[in-house]
């Protein structure tokens, strides 16, 4: 990732970059604050109605990189414009969290939940508070209760899978990722992550499933290097556990994965004139070792 100097970009580029980061949920807090301070805050009126959403985004980014002064400035502006707003109150509770005053923040979230039962974001913030305090098991319990009420919240399933992975409960994390795959079956990243978890679980059935999911992820997005490597390693593992005809299939799949990997490396080397010969050699040697083993 190249390092860009955001202080000298033009206003429109800064505005569209912030909008792109906002819509894609990109977490680049320092650069967001830099863009705001040096580029956009010079002409805030030119942003029009987008100004308030930008204030919210910059506020959260400022809390993320501990710039409480910028956060306070944004919150004052939002408070002046929207005096009795729940959304601004939520931002203030997030500021309390950033300062470490978790009990006060939870109090604010409880008040907000009491006033507005249907809004899921306050419950999610309470789970985040538990996570920040290190109480992962309570966070998991709260999040499970939340998901019983709000079943199709993809973000919550993803967060729950991360919490389970932190607790090394791989089977439950796999279940959460299955829910995500149900919601977005064409997302190769979810498929690859599910396959990663299944591969970690180990055992012939799980690695066989992992191989299937890695293959699907690689077919959907041929640039997904992790899926290609995952496919190769699951085939390698399976070759050690099987004999005969199945071995040939696994070696054929591994050979396809190797070819795809080498293609990608060569394409990347052409584009960026990087020296990727070592990677190509490593992949070739891996496959040669596999072939030798399988024919032995």
């Amino acid at each position, binding site marked *: 990732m190249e390092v860009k100097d955001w202080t000298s970009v033009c206003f429109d580029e800064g505005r569209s970059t912030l909008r792109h980061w906002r819509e894609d949920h990109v977490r680049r807090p*320092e650069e967001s604050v830099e863009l705001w301070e040096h580029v956009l805050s010079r002409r805030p009126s030119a942003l029009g109605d987008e100004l308030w959403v930008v204030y919210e985004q910059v506020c959260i980014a400022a809390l993320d990189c501990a710039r409480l002064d910028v956060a306070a400035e944004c919150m004052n502006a939002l408070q002046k414009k929207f005096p009795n707003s729940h959304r601004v109150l939520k931002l203030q509770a997030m500021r309390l969290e950033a300062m470490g005053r978790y009990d006060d923040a939870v109090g604010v979230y409880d008040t907000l939940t009491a006033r507005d039962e249907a809004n899921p974001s306050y419950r999610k913030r309470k789970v985040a508070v538990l996570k920040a305090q290190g109480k992962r098991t309570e966070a998991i319990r709260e999040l499970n209760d939340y998901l019983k009420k709000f079943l199709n919240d993809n973000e919550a399933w993803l967060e729950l899978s991360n919490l389970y992975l932190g607790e090394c409960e791989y089977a439950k994390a796999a279940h959460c990722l299955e829910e995500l795959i149900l919601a977005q079956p064409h*997302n190769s990243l*979810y498929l690859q992550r599910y396959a990663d978890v299944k591969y970690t679980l180990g055992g012939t059935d799980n690695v066989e499933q992992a191989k299937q999911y890695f293959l699907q992820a690689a077919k959907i997005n041929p640039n997904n290097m992790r899926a290609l490597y995952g496919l190769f390693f699951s085939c390698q593992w399976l070759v050690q556990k099987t004999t005969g005809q199945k071995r040939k299939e696994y070696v054929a799949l591994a050979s396809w994965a190797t070819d795809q990997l080498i293609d990608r490396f060569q394409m990347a080397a052409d584009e960026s004139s990087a020296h990727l010969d070592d990677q190509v050699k490593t992949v070739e040697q891996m496959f040669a070792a596999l072939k030798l083993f399988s024919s032995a």
Partner: protein
Amino acid sequence: MSGGSWSTLVRSLCFIGLISLIHCAYSAAQHRSYLRLTEQEFTRLPADILLQTVVSLVLICYSAAHVAGDFLPIRADTQVRTKSWDTVGNCPSFYTFDHRAKSLSPYFAADLRPQ
């Protein structure tokens, strides 16, 4: 060379179909003006114009599909393809702020004395 001659044949079929369809439209218009001149009622177009319209429509559809090239699978994930796990794996509602970035703050007073 059969590929080249097939594609020129298909293109010429498409062209013929288009000309035929325009001809149908013109003859239908002419038919209606003839009926108006002879003060007859207009109930339906004559069968040969209808037949020619349908045949030229089928011809155009088939040859245009061949001119356009091979069918591609519909990809449901063209936007998601370019994203990495850094963005897709983010849960913005669950962001916590107790990470190392606190030390980047200008107000961070680290207690460096050994405990």
